[in-house]
């Protein structure tokens, strides 16, 4: 049942891709067939995922494709099911959103056939990655995912910056893919087979398993956007169409997380504490730097992309904690950390997709990419405004929404670091947790900035003054995701109960008793250590609200007077007097100065004679330090090395023949 449903999901996604091929000719195909098929594929994936999670069973099959001696193995265990569910939910939302969103591309005569086809392929590839049970199928699906998303990133290729971003993405995806392949290579050498089943039972020496772990961290970390391997992410995610950004940020990064969990928790047998510490530190760095970079962006989608780096960092903090506990022989806490990581993955895919879809709606209506040109959108796009607000509250990890629950679980896991023997670990873990707290608080600031500048206040440009509501499908997609954010925030036990089977089937870890005290109470570890009851919190909030409202309105029905805002007697307030995003984030820019490459210039504009000051021009550019520290030196070395190699290229055909000749001789010698 589970397998059939999953196959159906892949086939439907492929069908959607096939149907879209005709969309250039018949634009209606996209709306009436391609997106509905994609939505059905999402539903099928949700069904398969739920099936695997509820029954807590593992279904295995062998597909009659692939090479004769390398059959494609398929396996859906609860972990795979969970990620299928995650993919499915976002795909459903995207399918709802798509028809309204791509209409504009159709008006502008973009090749929407390519968009639809690659979207379908992309979704099918992600589903296949999660289902794969051998390295061969995994890598094929993985590369398909990378390639399909490359074409989606390059969709608006008229713009040179987009082409550059797409190329960077492809390059880094290939390097990452290579690392993953090598990691599987190491494991397969000891397993004697590319099937995951063989790798699970293989005995890998410590050194080689460390190598496999390092390669997997590098490869999957590159795809997931861990600092300092993140350079492609803020370039590639913003330039794709918004529903694709939602898929990339919301889902594709999670597929990379899935791959990392699969390799480290499942395939590599034994886990070292030091690996966990590395993952913990890398995760903390990613979370903090991601949010600090997000703080300084003014391009809405770029900001969201940096915030994805932050959230992936949080997921890896939880994974790192889990690995530490696993290595230290604390299976219960390891399982709790894993649950926290998975829950945050799910949450992030929901609210980040919600925010990207909201950003897409805003950009479609205003044609502005920078929040500095928006403003006052809540009044013009009330639905999108409210849903975006829910996304902001969730991602800022504030109760009672879902982001808070997963961050709380991560902190609770970290708090249990006291049980560890090693004093140094007991020092490192709280510091990492403090970084997590700083990240959370800064994330709240980032999203106050986004919402306050873009949606509140007065419109800063003519275009944002004339923004209109997006169509109903786009609103429905956001409503769906926003509702899920609330449900997962208020009833976390529901989701955690579903996830409980994952640690058990993955590594025979015990289930954390987080939901042992009924649906009302979330109690990681034990009720006397910590408890959180989101439904009661919500009830209390509603009660307090109601009481204060009744108290204030019950006696006399009093009106509210609307007047222009007080302008200190200088004439009406203009939108240009509002605080800008750059001004909002200035204190942080000053406090954490060495983190960015800040190029801030203030130009004084004077009249012809240069006597009277007529204006000031402020220029601010925030560069990513990783470029100057890491990528540019590597680029230079590669160029130097390439020049050395280029010496071989003499242009003389006989020299080339001689190369071939000697190679042939060498190979013959090897064989004998």
């Amino acid at each position: 049942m589970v397998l059939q449903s999953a196959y159906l999901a892949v086939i439907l996604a492929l069908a959607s891709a096939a149907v879209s091929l005709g969309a250039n000719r018949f634009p209606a195909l996209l709306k009436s067939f391609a997106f509905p098929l994609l939505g059905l594929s999402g539903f099928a994936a949700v069904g398969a995922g739920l099936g695997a999670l509820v029954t807590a069973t593992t279904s295995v099959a062998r597909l009659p494709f692939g090479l004769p001696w390398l059959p494609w193995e398929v396996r859906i265990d609860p972990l795979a099911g969970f990620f299928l569910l995650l993919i499915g939910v976002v795909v459903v939302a995207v399918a709802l959103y798509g028809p309204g969103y791509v209409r504009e591309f159709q008006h502008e005569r973009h090749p929407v056939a390519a968009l639809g086809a690659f979207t379908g392929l992309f979704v099918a590839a992600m589903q296949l990655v999660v289902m794969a049970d051998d390295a061969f199928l995994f890598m094929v699906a993985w590369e398909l995912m990378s390639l399909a998303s490359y074409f989606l990133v390059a969709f608006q290729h008229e713009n040179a910056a987009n082409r550059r971003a797409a190329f960077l993405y492809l390059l880094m995806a290939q390097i990452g893919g290579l690392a993953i392949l090598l990691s599987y290579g190491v494991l397969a050498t000891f397993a004697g087979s590319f099937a995951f089943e063989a790798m699970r039972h293989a005995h890998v020496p410590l050194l080689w398993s460390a190598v496999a772990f390092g390669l997997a961290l590098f490869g999957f970390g590159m795809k997931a956007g861990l600092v300092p391997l993140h350079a492609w992410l803020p370039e590639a995610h913003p330039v794709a169409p918004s529903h694709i950004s939602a898929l990339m940020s919301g889902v594709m990064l999670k597929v990379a997380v899935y791959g990392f969990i699969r390799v480290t928790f499942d395939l590599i047998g034994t886990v070292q504490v030091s690996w966990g510490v590395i993952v913990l530190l890398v995760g903390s760095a990613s979370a903090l730097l991601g949010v600090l970079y997000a703080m300084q962006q003014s391009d809405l989608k770029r900001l969201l992309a940096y915030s994805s780096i932050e959230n992936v960092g949080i997921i890896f903090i939880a994974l790192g904690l889990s690995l530490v506990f696993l290595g230290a022989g604390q299976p219960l806490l390891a399982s709790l950390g894993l649950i926290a990581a998975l829950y945050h993955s799910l949450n992030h895919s929901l609210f980040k997709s919600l925010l990207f879809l909201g950003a897409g709606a805003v950009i479609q209506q205003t044609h502005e990419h920078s929040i500095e040109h928006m403003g006052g959108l809540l009044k013009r796009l009330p639905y999108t405004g409210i849903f975006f607000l829910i996304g902001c509250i969730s991602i800022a990890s504030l109760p009672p929404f879902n982001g808070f629950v997963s961050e709380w679980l991560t902190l609770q896991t970290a708090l249990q670091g006291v049980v560890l023997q090693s004093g140094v670990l007991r020092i490192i873990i709280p510091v990492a947790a403090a970084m997590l707290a700083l990240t959370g608080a800064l994330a709240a600031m980032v999203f106050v900035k986004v919402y306050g500048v873009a949606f509140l206040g007065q419109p800063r440009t003519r275009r944002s003054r004339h923004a209109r509501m997006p169509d109903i499908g786009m609103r429905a997609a956001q409503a769906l995701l926003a509702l899920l954010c609330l449900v997962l925030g208020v009833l976390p036990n529901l989701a955690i109960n579903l996830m409980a089977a994952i640690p058990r089937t993955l590594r025979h870890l015990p289930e954390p008793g987080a939901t042992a005290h009924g649906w009302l109470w979330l109690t990681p570890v034990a009720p006397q250590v910590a408890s959180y009851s989101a439904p009661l919190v919500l009830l209390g909030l509603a009660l307090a609200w109601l009481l204060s409202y009744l108290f204030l309105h019950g006696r006399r029905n009093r009106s509210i007077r609307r007047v222009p805002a007080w302008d200190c007697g200088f004439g009406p307030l203009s939108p240009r007097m509002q605080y800008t995003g750059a001004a909002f984030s200035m204190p942080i820019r000053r406090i954490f100065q060495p983190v960015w490459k800040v190029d801030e210039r203030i130009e004084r504009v004077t009249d012809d004679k240069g006597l009277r000051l007529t204006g000031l021009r402020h220029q601010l550019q925030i560069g990513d330090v990783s470029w100057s520290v890491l990528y540019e030196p590597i680029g230079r070395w590669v160029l130097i090395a390439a020049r050395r190699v280029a010496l071989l290229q003499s242009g003389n055909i006989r020299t080339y023949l001689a190369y071939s000749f000697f190679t042939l001789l060498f190979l013959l010698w090897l064989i004998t």
Partner: protein
Amino acid sequence: MADYLNPQGWLLALLQTLLFVAAAPLLVGWIRLLKATLQNRRAASPLQPYRDLIKLFGKEPVVADTASVIFRAAPYVVFSTTVVTAAVIPLIAVNLPTAAIADVIVLVGFLALARFFLALAGMDVGTAFGGMGASREMTISSLGEPAMLMAIFTLTMTAQSTNIAHAIDFMLSSGFVLRPSFMFALFGMLLVAVAETGRIPVDNPTTHLELTMLHEAMILEYSGRHLALMEWAAQLKLMIYGVLIVNVFLPWGIATRLTPQALLLGLVTVLVKLMALAVVLAVAETGLAKMRLFRAPEFLNLAFLLALLGMLSHVILEVGA
């Protein structure tokens, strides 16, 4: 958590919350009285904050026409969130059923939610002041957050619980122990509390000078009952931090059983402790000058350092080899 079906407990919890909410303006009035006395001014009655609130409740609110629905919803969100926070904190008795609803990290989350809406409300009208206040408030609070969490970590490493009632129980049962980690955590927490509640030297609650205000800048556009709710919430927040500090670090006297005598004793002790804490605050505020904004990070770094030293001294000195 076991007795969360006990109606008497819920009733007491409700009463305690009402007391908490009702007493918050009194604490502020008391601090103002102390400060005025220390500064050789003639003091208003400690009941003055109540009169201010009643006056504001009676006035018609004036709302800027650029303001959106967020501006009108924010006072209610901020106030009810703060009230729920207050409901969770043991004031005169521990082991009330509300204590299990949320642990101390959730409390930090509640306060962050209130702040989130406060900052949004500041930016809603579209004046420069609101944005400035929002930006500064969010900056300072985000720097305070790691210090706060580190202090909490230090406490929970010893008490083995983030649940405040359980932490208090632990403190009571282990008797009087001089713990270096608690000393540092206490000082770190005090500094964070000063920064978060907008007191001198980080913010000045009495000023409306554009260069110096943080909290006041955000609520500048509010009037009437909206302003009253915002003010009340701010007073509650001060009381929340005060009660958190005195009841977690010096819990002696708090009622562990729900008998009238114990409850009365708990009430008296917590009042005495809060009044003493207010004296410390008033003296500090009289002696210190407000720092400029970019000194505040140093102040909060100190708070973080103290909390970190607390954690380190827990690991090094209290558990040891």
